[in-house]
C-alpha cells in the first residue's frame, strides 16, 4: 500500500505489522480481556455447529442414507459458518476503524483482511477441534483422505475471504447492499450444499446447483472425510477460477473504497 516506491520487502514488513496490530485490536474489542476472552473466537462457531449437529441427528437429516450424521453435519455446517461469518463481519467494517485510518499505513484492505483472517482462524479451529473431539469418542471416523479435505477447506476459505472483500467494500457504497446481503445469506443457506449431497439430487438439479461455488467446497471437504463411501461432484478448477475472479472484483472494489474514505 504505497505509491512512493517503498521496497517490496519493507512494504511486506509494514503489511505484517499493520495486519497484526488490527487483529489484536479486533480481538480486544470483540472478546475483551475478561473471562475466557478470545476463546470465544472458536467456541462460538463450535457451539453453533454442535447445536445444528444435535438438531440434524434428531431429524435424521441424511434422508435415510447410511452416511454418518455427525460427520455430515460438522462438515456441512462448518462450511456455511466459514463463508457466512466472513461476509457478515466484513459488512460495515470501516466505520468502527475510521479513526485508526489517521495512520497512513492503515488502509481499507488491512481493516478487512484483519477481520477476515480472524473469522477464518475461528471457523478452522472450530472444525478441527470438533473433529478431534468426535473422532476420539468414536462418533466420527478419521477423514479418509485428509489432503483432499484440507484442499477443499482452503479453497472454501479463499472463497470466504474474497467474498468478504467484495461484500464488505460494496456495503460501504450503499446501505441497500448491507440489508439485502443478510437476506441473501439466508437464501444461500439451503443452496450451499451443506444440508445435502449433490448426488442425492435429480440430474437436472445437479447441473443447476453446481453453478453455486460453495457447493464445490463442501463436496470436496466431504469427499475427503468420507472417501469413496460417497460420490461427490466438486470441480476444484471451476471453484478456483471463480475465486480468482471474485478476488479481483473484491480488490477492485476495495481500491475504489480506499479512494473515498475520509478519516473522522
Amino acid at each position, binding site marked *: 500500500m504505497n505509491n512512493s516506491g517503498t521496497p517490496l520487502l519493507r512494504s511486506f514488513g509494514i503489511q505484517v505489522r499493520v495486519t497484526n*496490530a488490527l487483529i*489484536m*485490536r479486533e480481538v480486544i474489542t470483540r472478546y475483551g480481556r475478561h473471562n475466557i476472552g478470545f476463546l470465544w473466537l472458536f467456541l462460538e462457531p463450535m457451539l453453533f455447529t454442535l447445536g445444528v449437529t444435535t438438531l440434524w441427528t434428531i431429524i435424521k437429516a441424511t434422508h435415510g442414507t447410511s452416511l454418518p450424521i455427525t460427520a455430515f453435519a460438522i462438515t456441512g455446517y462448518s462450511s456455511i459458518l466459514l463463508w457466512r461469518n466472513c461476509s457478515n463481519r466484513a459488512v460495515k467494517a470501516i466505520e468502527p*476503524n475510521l479513526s485508526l485510518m*489517521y*495512520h*497512513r499505513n492503515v488502509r481499507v484492505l488491512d481493516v478487512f483482511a484483519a477481520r477476515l483472517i480472524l473469522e477464518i482462524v475461528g471457523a478452522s479451529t472450530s472444525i478441527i477441534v470438533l473433529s478431534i473431539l468426535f473422532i476420539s469418542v468414536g462418533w466420527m471416523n478419521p477423514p479418509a483422505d485428509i489432503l483432499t479435505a484440507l484442499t477443499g477447506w482452503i479453497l472454501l476459505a479463499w472463497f470466504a475471504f474474497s467474498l468478504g472483500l467484495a461484500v464488505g467494500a460494496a456495503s460501504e457504497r450503499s446501505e441497500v447492499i448491507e440489508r439485502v446481503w443478510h437476506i441473501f445469506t439466508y437464501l444461500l443457506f439451503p443452496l450451499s450444499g451443506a444440508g445435502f449431497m449433490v448426488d442425492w439430487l435429480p440430474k437436472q438439479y445437479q447441473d443447476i446447483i453446481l453453478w453455486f461455488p460453495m457447493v464445490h467446497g463442501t463436496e470436496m471437504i466431504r469427499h475427503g472425510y468420507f472417501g469413496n463411501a460417497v460420490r461427490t461432484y466438486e470441480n476444484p478448477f471451476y471453484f478456483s477460477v471463480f475465486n480468482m475472479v471474485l478476488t479481483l472484483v473484491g480488490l477492485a472494489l476495495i481500491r475504489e473504497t*480506499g479512494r473515498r474514505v475520509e478519516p473522522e
Partner: protein
Amino acid sequence: MISLDNVAKVYHTREGARTVLEGINLSIAKGEKIGVLGRNGAGKSTLIRLISGAELPTRGKIHRGISISWPLAFGGAFQGSLSGLDNVRFICRVYGAPIEPAIEFVREFSELGTYLREPVKTYSSGMRARLAFAISMAVEFDCFLIDEIVAVGDSRFHEKCHIELFEKRKDRAMIIVSHSADYIREHCQRAAVLVSGKLHSFEDVDDAFSYYESQP
C-alpha cells in the same frame, strides 16, 4: 525532503463536487519548520491529512522522503472502545516502535494513572488531549504534522508539551497549521497562507501575516 507537486483535492458532497485544494506546491527540507495560516474551512486540515497520507490526493503527487507523523491534534487517531494502553500498543505495532518504553513514557507524561486501563471513549476532552499528545511523542518521526494544537490543556500541561515538542525535538521538521499567527510566528521560519483552496507561500513570516490580515 517532502514535496507536493500540483496537488488537488476534490470532495463529493450532496451539492456535487467541491474543490477544497487546487494546484498546491510545497516543499519542506529536513529540520525546516513551516506554518500554514488559514481561516476556518480554508482546507488546512485537509492539507495536513494529504501530507500525512491518511487521505489520497485527487490529482498531483506527494513525495515523502522522510518519516512523517500522523496529524497530531488534541484528539483523534484513537479507537474509542480500546483502553488508553491498548491504543498505545496499537500505534506502536503500526509504526514498529518498541511497546514497553512507549507505555512507560505515556504513563509518565500523560499522568492519567489508572484511567489508562479505561476505554478512551469514557475520557474527558482534557484527558484525551493528554493521551493524544503523549502517544504522539512516544513514537519518533523526522517530520511532525501539527494541527491546531494550541487550543487545549491547562498551562502546566501546555508548558510540558512545549518542552517536549519544540525544545527536545527542535531538530525535526514541522508543519504547523493554525489560525493563530502568533503561534506560527513563534515556531516557524517561513509561512504560507491558504485562501480559498490556493496556497500562497512567503519566505518571511511577517509577510505571510500581513497578507493573511489583508484577506477579507
